[in-house]
């Protein structure tokens, strides 16, 4: 399968009054055309910062992207032929603006705060269409109503002039999705899109995105706290820890043959069948390291049951432990398992 996005060694830091927060220290991953990549990791591990870095959405200052590449192999590009990728990190203001909402759509966690409270739902969708596709107000309105219907909002024509507070949580998240897909993007980035919703609605939203992905031939990056969600919908999974990508693998490989002690812990913390409630990843022992002064050794060493001497001396690089399965650990745990 062809790659659509390739992120290499992304380094993002925040220059705050307390010191330099090393939010991302060299994150690499790639995304294939038409695949769903799940990203998991404790809160604060850098999942959102990674995605916002790609689209220049972080506040600068304090944020600074200090290294890396993010090659975007757009193949719906009119001007240059598919082959030439663009480095998102090198784009200027107007360049990245065409990508945002145009070729890459963003779905945020809490749709209530992510939608403008004093602008109608319809206007928030048509605004994007007018900006990217140069539609007139009437054309954009017509298209927005179609989009609302497409994401499963009943009585779309009437709802066009409603305000976010008049919608239920699920409908608001559907609206966010309509905004994100409005310009027929190649990639959708969903940053914990279902965390604020109850379980039934969550399932509906996941189903909707899966359907849209197929029908619109998009690639999806799905950030979540919930390993159960990842198991159900992702093709591959990236595990992040303290600003690094510690493991990336096809979903079955990751669940049956995890290669990094952190992933193994996460899976151990997963609720067994029949257990009640949504399980948060924070529930594993210990706390993540302080990003103000990252150590010159394995970030996970303090919490790792397998930490050996060399783990305290150097930072492990990612290694391929089986085809398409990479882990950043000195030892090969996957191989030792039956």
């Amino acid at each position: 399968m062809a790659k659509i996005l390739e992120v290499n060694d992304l380094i993002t830091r925040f220059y705050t009054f307390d010191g330099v927060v090393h939010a991302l220290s060299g994150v690499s991953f790639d995304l294939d055309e038409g695949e769903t990549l799940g990203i998991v990791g404790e809160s604060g591990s850098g999942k959102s910062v990674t995605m916002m870095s790609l689209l220049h959405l972080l506040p600068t200052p304090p944020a600074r992207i200090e290294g890396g590449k993010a090659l975007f192999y757009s193949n719906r590009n009119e001007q240059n032929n598919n082959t030439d990728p663009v480095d998102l990190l090198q784009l200027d203001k107007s360049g990245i603006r065409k990508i945002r909402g145009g070729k890459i759509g963003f779905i945020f966690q809490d749709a209530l705060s992510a939608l403008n409270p004093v602008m109608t739902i319809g206007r928030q969708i048509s605004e994007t269409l007018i900006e990217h596709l140069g539609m007139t107000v009437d054309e954009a309105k017509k298209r927005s109503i179609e989009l609302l219907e497409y994401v499963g909002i009943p009585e779309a024509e009437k709802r066009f002039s409603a305000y976010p507070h008049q919608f239920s949580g699920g409908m608001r998240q559907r609206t966010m999705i309509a905004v994100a897909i409005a310009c027929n993007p190649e990639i959708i980035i969903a940053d914990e899109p279902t965390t604020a919703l109850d379980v039934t609605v969550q399932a509906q939203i996941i189903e909707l995105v899966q359907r849209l992905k197929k029908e619109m031939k998009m690639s999806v990056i799905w950030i979540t706290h919930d390993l159960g969600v990842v198991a159900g919908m992702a093709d591959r999974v990236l595990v992040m820890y303290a600003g690094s990508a510690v493991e990336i693998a096809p979903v079955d490989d990751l669940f049956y043959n995890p290669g990094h002690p952190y992933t193994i812990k996460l899976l151990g913390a997963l609720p067994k069948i029949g257990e009640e409630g949504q399980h948060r990843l924070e529930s594993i022992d210990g706390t993540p390291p302080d990003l103000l002064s990252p150590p010159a050794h394995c970030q996970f060493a303090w919490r790792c049951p397998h930490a050996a001497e060399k783990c305290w001396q150097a930072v492990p690089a990612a290694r391929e432990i089986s085809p398409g399965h990479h882990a950043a650990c000195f030892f090969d745990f996957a191989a030792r398992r039956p």
Partner: protein
Amino acid sequence: MQKYIFSRLVQSLCILFGVLFIVFFMMQVTGDPVSLLLSRHATPQEVEEMREELGYNRPILIQFTSFVSRAVVGDFGRSFRHKQPAMDLIIERLPATVELAVTALLISLILGIPLGLISGSNPGSFWDVISRGTGLLGQTIPNFWLALILILVFSVNLGWFPSFGRETWHFMGLTLPTRSVILPAFSLSLFTMGQLIRFTRSAVLEIRSEDYVRTAYSKGIPDRKVYIRHILRNASIPLISIVGVQFGYLLSGSIYIETIFSWPGLGNLLAESIGNRDFALVQAIAFFSSFVVVTLNLLTDIAYGLADPRIRYE
């Protein structure tokens, strides 16, 4: 929304009744008006006759009731000094004060909001320092002092504007303002401008980091449109209250500014009537100003509700 408007309306009426109460008893505690009306050589009998005639002999509650029932139709009695109904005098002076207040409000809006917006969107920049400085000065410099400086520079030295009085321009049956309003309006606008700068700045700073602003950027909306459509639009809701309150304050007439510039408005009339102990007129102006402020507050609340869909669709 109807419930919202209704409750604000009831509140406003209660406040106005309270104002009538205060205005009435204000006169009771400042001494006997009859002694002011008659010469010092009046006999006790003459005083008694006068009291009888003006109704000051009746029980206080009766007096208050009759005061209120006349006040609600705008009758505050006659001015001792001008020998005219007090309300007529107010109506006569009103256009000058409205002209001054509207001009001052426009100046403060036109300068204050853009300065606040620039300042809030580039905190720490050169323009931020300028705007914040202006805002702070606007709220701390006494406006009568500024008025004197302006007269010195722009009237006395440069001769660009008249130093006092109101000149109007009559055109097709309309009375239009001339440059004579500029200096008094500018002096008067300074405080409001300072408030608008500071308020707009902090609102923009706060709203800038809201999630929906990040969403707007993530849709590829250009910065300028994000600022106007998303940030300023949201900031304008709380701004409505500030503008409403400030306009009420401007409309009730400024004693200092109108006196310095001999501006024939309500503030000037009030200063004069206090000097003359012209009770009916003082009462009428006090009530009228409160009425303007309360009405504006009510209108502000309604505008606020209309601007915010979360209130409009309750």
